[in-house]
C-alpha cells in the first residue's frame, strides 16, 4: 500500500510534459494541416501540434488568454479583431494566405445537387455564428430559389469538421463543407488509414460538387501571429508555410490562390 502511495505521489507531482509548440487552426484544416506539419517536421525536425476548433471559438479563446502565437483562421474578421486587441510589444501581424472553396456533398440516391437540395430531409452546415464555412454555406443557401423550403432543413454543427461526421453517420443527406475536408486524392493517400477509409466510404456514399465561387462571399483564410518569447519556432513555420514551395500543397488541399 505504501509503494502504491509513493507511485501516486510521484505521478501527481510529475511535471507536465514540456509544453510543445502549438498552433490554433480552423476546423476545416483538421485533415490537411497535420499532413503539412508532418512534412515540416520531416524537413526541419521541429514538431508542432495543432489545436482545432471553429475560427470564432479560437479567437474567443485567444482573447481570453489561450497560449497560441499562431492562429490560422478561415475569416479575416477574427484575425483583425485580435489585431485590434493587440498591445504594441506583442508585435501582432496578420495576412491572408488563400481562399477556401465550398463543396456540396449529397447522397448518391439523388441524381443532381438541385434534386438533393430539394428532396433531402436534412442539410448539414457548420454554425454560421462562429464558423466561417457555415456563414458562407448559409449565404449560398439564402440565395437559392428554394430558400424558403431549405431553411427548415438546415442542421447546424459546432464546426466545419463535424459536418462530415453527420454525413458519414447518415444524419444528413446533404452537407456543405470546406474543400479542405475532402481534399485531392494525392493528399488523401497521405492520411492515416482510418481516416482514408472514412473518406472513401463518404465518396462511395455520395457525390461532391464544387459550389461556384460567385454564389457565396469569398472565404479568405488568414493567419494571425503574435511574438512570444517561448515559441520562436512558430514564426519560422509561418514563413515556411507561406513560401511558394508549399503552394502545390494548398492547391491540393482545395485552396485557390488569393489575389
Amino acid at each position, binding site marked *: 500500500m505504501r509503494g502504491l502511495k509513493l507511485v*501516486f505521489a510521484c*505521478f*501527481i507531482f510529475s511535471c*507536465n*510534459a514540456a*509544453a*510543445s509548440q*502549438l498552433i490554433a487552426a480552423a*476546423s476545416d484544416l*483538421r*485533415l490537411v494541416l497535420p499532413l503539412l506539419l508532418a512534412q515540416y517536421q520531416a524537413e526541419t525536425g521541429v514538431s508542432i*501540434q495543432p*489545436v*482545432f*476548433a471553429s475560427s470564432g471559438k479560437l479567437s474567443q*479563446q485567444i*482573447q*481570453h*488568454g*489561450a*497560449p497560441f502565437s499562431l492562429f490560422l483562421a478561415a475569416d479575416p474578421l477574427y484575425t483583425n479583431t485580435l489585431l485590434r486587441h493587440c498591445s504594441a510589444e506583442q508585435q501582432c501581424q496578420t495576412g491572408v494566405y488563400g481562399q477556401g472553396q465550398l463543396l456540396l456533398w449529397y447522397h448518391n440516391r439523388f441524381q443532381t445537387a438541385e434534386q438533393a437540395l430539394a428532396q433531402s430531409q436534412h442539410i448539414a452546415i457548420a454554425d454560421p455564428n462562429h464558423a466561417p464555412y457555415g456563414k458562407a454555406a448559409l449565404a449560398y443557401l439564402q440565395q437559392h430559389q428554394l430558400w424558403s423550403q431549405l431553411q427548415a432543413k438546415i442542421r447546424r454543427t459546432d*464546426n466545419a*469538421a*463535424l459536418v*462530415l*461526421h453527420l454525413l*458519414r453517420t447518415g444524419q444528413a443527406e446533404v452537407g456543405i463543407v470546406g474543400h479542405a475536408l475532402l481534399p485531392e486524392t494525392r493528399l488523401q493517400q497521405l492520411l*492515416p488509414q*482510418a*481516416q482514408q477509409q*472514412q*473518406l472513401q466510404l463518404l465518396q462511395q456514399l455520395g457525390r461532391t460538387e464544387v459550389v461556384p465561387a460567385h454564389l457565396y462571399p469569398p472565404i479568405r483564410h488568414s493567419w494571425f501571429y503574435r511574438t512570444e518569447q517561448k515559441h520562436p519556432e512558430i514564426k519560422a513555420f509561418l514563413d515556411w508555410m507561406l513560401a511558394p514551395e508549399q503552394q502545390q500543397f494548398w492547391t491540393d488541399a482545395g485552396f485557390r490562390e488569393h489575389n
Partner: protein
Amino acid sequence: MLYPAEWQALLLTVKLALLSSFFLLLLTAPLAWWLSRGHSTTRNAINALLTLPLVLPPTVLGFYLVLLLSPDSWFSQLLRLAGIEALAFRFEGLVLASMLYSLPFVVQPLQQGFAQIAQELLDQNRALGANSWQLMAQLIWPLSRPALFSAFILSFAHTLGEFGIVLMIGGNIPGQTQLLSMLIYDQVESLNYARAHLLSGLLLLFSFSVLFWLYQQQRGQQQRGQQQRSQK
C-alpha cells in the same frame, strides 16, 4: 497500442481527477462538518449554493469561469499580485473548475456521513475529558472514513467524465487541458472512429476498474472490521 498524445491525455485525466478530488476533500470537510451540526437558515442557504453545480448546466459554470480566469479579470489580477499567472487554458484552471463542478458530489456524502456521528456521543466523550484533537483522532476520523472514501470515489469518477466545462474553459491544449474526453471528441471530429472507439473503451474499462477496485477495498475494510469483532 496508445500514441504518446493519448497516453498524455489519459495520465492528465487521472491526475486531474486525483488532484481535484484530494483538494476538494481537504477544503470541504470542515464546511461539511459545520453543515452537519444542525439546521438553520444560513446552513440551508449555503447548502443550496453548494448543490447548484448539480443542477446548473456546465455551460453556466463554464461561462463564468472563462470570464473569471481570463487574464484581464479581477481574479487573475489578484493572482498576478501573488505571483501566479492567469489560470485560463492551464491545468491549474481545470483543477479549479473540476473542484467547483464536483462540489456537491463531495459535500453531500460527507455531510451525511458526519451527521451519523451523534452530537451526544461527542459531548459524552468531551465530558469524559477528551480535547478536540483527541475527539478528532479517536472518534471523528475513524467514524467518518467511509464517508470520506465514498466522497472521494464520487468526485474522482465525476471528474473522469467531465466534458462540458473542459470544452468551454480548457482549450483542448495537449499536455495542459486535453483530457481523454476532449481527445475522443477530437477523434470523432476528424473521422478517426477507430481511435475514438479505442479511447472510449479504455475510459470505460478504466473507470469500471477503478470503481470496482475501490468498492472491493471498501468491502475488504468492512469484512476486516467484522472479523475483528467476531474473533471473540
